[in-house]
């Protein structure tokens, strides 16, 4: 776990209010990153924003030292990130949290299910799974056409379905509609997205083992403040999303 400065290499508006931010960091900090982990980004220089913003790692490149995140502007912090200029410096804590435990799993066929800003971490996951010879199918859902991103990128790694709530791009409906329609199966599934989607995925995929990546408002991002808890399935104890997660076995958590 490190606190580092990173300089902005590239910032691109890739979909409605959605930005791809590429920063340069020392490669020593990249070698330990696992898909599903996140960075905790400081906003601004002064003290107006005392809380960092958690954003999933979407990609990294050990050779160039580039780390990519994809975020949607939903408030003040992400708006400020979207106004960064090339060469400016941002401060990151990284890598945070537990990623998808793909090293421990024996799998041939993986189903990746993402919604909205839950899509980015699945890209790094898909790349690493493909590198390990796993066959990857992706289902990603968005509100509408203008929100869609990374269809092309995921298609290069395997079959990729896109759903939009209003049907303005590919399939109309929810990610679970496609899963049911196409009777998609896998050894494991991996999902990240809004809670409502994760719930639907959890019940649709009830017979398949899987992993969910959760979101919660965070303070420290490292397990020290107890801001980001979620109950275990038995409602008897909490886990910390930032430290024990954000990825949990689907059987472990009750949404």
């Amino acid at each position, binding site marked *: 776990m490190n*606190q580092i400065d990173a300089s902005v290499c590239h910032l691109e508006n890739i979909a409605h209010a959605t930005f791809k931010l590429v920063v340069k960091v020392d490669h020593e900090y990249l070698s330990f990153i696992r898909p599903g982990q996140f960075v905790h980004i400081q906003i601004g220089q002064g*003290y107006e924003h005392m809380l960092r913003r958690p954003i999933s790692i979407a990609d990294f490149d050990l050779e160039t030292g580039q780390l990519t995140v994809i975020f949607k502007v939903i408030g003040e912090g992400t708006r400020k990130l979207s106004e960064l200029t090339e060469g400016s410096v941002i401060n990151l804590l990284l890598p945070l949290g537990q990623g998808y435990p793909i090293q421990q799993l024996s799998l041939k066929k993986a189903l990746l299910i993402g919604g909205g800003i839950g899509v980015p971490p699945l890209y790094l996951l898909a790349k690493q799974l493909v590198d390990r010879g796993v066959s990857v199918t992706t289902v990603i859902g968005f509100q509408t056409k203008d929100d869609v991103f990374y269809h092309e990128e995921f298609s290069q790694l395997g079959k990729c379905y896109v759903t939009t709530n209003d049907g303005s791009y590919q399939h109309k409906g929810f990610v679970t509609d496609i899963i049911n329609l196409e009777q998609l199966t896998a050894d494991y599934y991996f999902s990240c997205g809004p809670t409502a989607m994760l719930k639907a995925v959890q019940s649709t995929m009830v017979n398949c083992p899987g992993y969910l990546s959760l979101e919660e408002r965070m*303070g*420290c991002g*490292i397990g020290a403040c107890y*801001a980001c*808890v979620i109950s275990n399935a038995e409602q008897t104890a909490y886990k910390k999303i930032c430290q024990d997660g954000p990825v949990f076995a689907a059987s472990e958590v009750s949404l």
Partner: protein
Amino acid sequence: MIDLTVELPGLKLKNPIMPASGCFSFGQEYNQFYSLNKLGAIMIKAATQEPRLGNPTPRVAETHAGMLNAIGLQNPGVTTIIEEQLPFLQSFDLPIIANIAGSSIEEYVYVAKTLSDSAAVAALELNISCPNVKEGGVQFGTDPHIAAEVTRRVKEVSKVPVYVKLSPNVTDIVEIALAVEAAGADGLSMINTLTGMKIDLDTRKPLLANQVGGLSGPAIKPIAIRMIYQVYQAVKIPIIGMGGIVTATDVIEYLLAGASAVAIGTANFQNPLVCSDIIDQLPSCLTEYGFTSIKDVIGGGHDDN
């Protein structure tokens, strides 16, 4: 090189900097960023008699130059804390100040006695900002009589010095400070958070599941400085100051106001190295402002100093 040591009841501090309770858990996480040996002391997360799950989420919200939290005293209970958390901390050269909370005087007494008997902690920090269930939820810390009573009862069972942590949500902080001093408090710790709220425009409802939360961070610093300044003039026991500290100059401002040491909470979230950075910068910062020792600074903002 300026001597940063400070001596307070029960506490020999290498320097006057410690993390504030609830913002640093039991130290393990921040020890990944720097060695806890560097700190003057540590104020650990609140302990209660039984485990508590705390409040539903969302538990935090950002505000201008501050944040709201409504963690709700989540902790594994005093016995588990002593067994599972303190051994790690005891491996450091680091006075442990245990923050204790409760919903009744009996619970405070139980937790205080258990911690003090464990011999693992150097001092207790009595968090009297908790709602008193027996008195219908009014906070222990807002009524001078109840504040004094819980202090007295905890002092009876504690073998280590007791610092009472005052709530700023009161009309007259000096009255409460004098009451707990008279009841035997060895020191004061101030301030806890101010009660605040944020409303989410999308849901149109309070953003925190608990509706209200405690406001901390730089936003509240002027209130903390004012309260410490006023209390310093009224009491004889030392004060550990906190509320919005981010820099070494903030620390000096607190010491001038009358704090003998300080704690840092919210700023750890922005910069996990903040305590370590401040400890590094404090000597040169003191020199820059013409101080030659920590003792010169403490209370130096008052006219008779």
